[in-house]
């Protein structure tokens, strides 16, 4: 905390008011409602309501396809994080190194970050369609690729669609991270250690750890939530429900299947999962502030 601070009776609340009002109305009210739904059985239109205890949670956790979704979500997050982090880092390191054309590379690598997941999804749908798809044709000729029948192929489809724009996001943050490493450190290391690869792993990479940690969290949140727009415009769970993420399943059961009780229970389970993730994130951010 700051050593010097303002003290006032109410000014701080004026500054806080807009955020607090909006959060209360658009976040806390819906959350309260979600909790009420999770412990209620009701029909699609909200009638026939009664208190259900833990029934909805039992229903969700005993649903085999929920466990399938849980598994896929973690696989998906893991693969997206690994692919986009490593490629993003590789490109950032090279872009930081080149003498000529630095800004051109930067521009050409940054822009996919701006593309919406749903747009990526629809574009991917064309690339992987049996009719028009270049990637479908390529993979099909290589190993008989067919994402409508084969789980592995459906995974490949979603890994590519999910990681693509995320490489860009990781590139930006890694590049920013690399630029904060002071010139003097690099110059000093040049004398100590002549192999550039060793220099990278022993000097640069440890200095990038904060950025890497931060990006892992960003990628986890992306894989968890933002991929919704991709799934909903590509496989919608094909071949047979194996490619639904938890968020997508909650949406399908609640919004499509019209079971708000089960969807509420799923939302709460998800909140718990994200809570764990955010606690890690929070601890990490706070720890870094101590460093400074």
């Amino acid at each position, binding site marked *: 905390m*700051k050593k*010097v*601070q*303002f*003290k*006032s009776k109410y*000014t*701080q*609340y004026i500054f806080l008011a807009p*955020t607090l009002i909006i*959060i209360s*109305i*658009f*976040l806390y*009210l*819906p*959350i309260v*409602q979600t909790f009420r*739904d999770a412990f209620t059985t009701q029909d699609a239109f909200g009638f026939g309501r009664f208190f259900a205890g833990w029934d909805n949670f039992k229903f969700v956790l005993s649903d085999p396809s929920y466990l399938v979704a849980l598994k896929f979500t973690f696989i998906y997050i893991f693969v997206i994080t690994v692919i986009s982090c490593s490629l993003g880092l*590789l490109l950032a390191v*090279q872009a930081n*190194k*080149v003498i000529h*054309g630095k800004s051109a*590379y930067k*521009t050409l*690598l*940054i*822009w*996919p970050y*701006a*593309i*919406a*997941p*749903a*747009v990526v*999804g*629809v*574009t991917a*749908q*064309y690339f992987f369609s049996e*009719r028009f798809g270049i990637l479908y044709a390529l993979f099909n000729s290589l190993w008989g690729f067919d994402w409508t029948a084969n789980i592995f192929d459906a995974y490949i489809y979603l890994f590519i669609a999910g990681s693509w724009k995320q490489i*860009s996001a990781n590139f930006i943050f890694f590049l*920013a*991270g690399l*630029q*904060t490493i002071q010139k003097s450190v690099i110059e000093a290391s040049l004398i100590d250690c002549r192999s550039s690869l060793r220099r990278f792993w022993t000097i640069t990479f440890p200095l990038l750890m904060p950025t890497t940690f931060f990006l892992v969290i960003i990628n986890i949140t992306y894989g968890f939530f933002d991929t919704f*727009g991709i799934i909903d415009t590509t496989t919608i769970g094909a071949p047979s429900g194996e490619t639904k993420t938890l*968020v997508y399943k909650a*949406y399908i059961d609640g*919004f499509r299947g019209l079971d*708000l009780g089960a*969807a509420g229970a799923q*939302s709460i389970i998800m*909140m718990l999962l*994200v*809570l764990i993730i*955010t606690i890690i994130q929070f601890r990490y951010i706070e720890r870094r*502030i101590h460093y*400074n």
Partner: protein
Amino acid sequence: MINRLTQMFAHFILLLGVLLMVIPIWLAFTSSTHDNVTLITEGMQWYPGPLFIENYDEVLNEKGGFSEEITATGMLINSFIMGLGIATLKVIISMMAAYSLVYFRFRLATPIFWFIFITLLVPLEVRIFPSYKIVSDIGLTNSYTGLVLPLVASATAVFFFRQFYKSVPDELLESAKLDGANSWRFFIDFLVPLSKTMIAAMFIFMFVFGYSQYLWPLLMTTDEKYWTVVMGMKLIYVELYEGVSLPRVGQRFAYIILSIIPPVLIVVLLQRWFIKGLIQTEK
């Protein structure tokens, strides 16, 4: 010599990366300039075709929907308003909230911080039904306000600003106090100018976030006037999924290309600020 080799290697990797990023969109673009028969019979095209003006003109100006008033241009404008609204509001209110949390001494600071913080757990997709009900209860369906406000309710930007303010040296406030600045003056005259790059970075971040919204506008807007370009993806998808006998592939690609132009322009034009801002957060 070694240096030359590393440079060549770097260029090689970077070129591969650029190809990876550019080829998909290049293909979408070139395919958007062909006629549908070519696309259906021969698949996507590598080189530009003759129908650039026709396809794009059709997509931009063809009036669709029941009202026959909505065009892709209109949808692009709506998306832009949505991105802009979310980014602007979010940056302003988050700066204020973070300022209060960092620069004021008051007992409720920690509980309020947690109150805001917890909201990270509940993205819109998870609370979509109740959110829709609330927006409708206050009569905001089919309005820009309704499109924007529920998405402004999130904590990310507050955290970025909070972190940034914490890294600002204490001396700044001390000297400001010597100058006789009160909390408002300090915020407006000292802190805001200092946060310029940070503001730009957050603005881009939030603009892309707002512009990308998909499910929310889909649910929220029954009035065609408020359709956004990204929710249009759903309509393309349904068309692909349900199947139409003569899909208008060329025009669809043109629509995809048009939809990515505004956020890409913002990111590319403001990239310098973006990276600078991120470096500041890193501190």
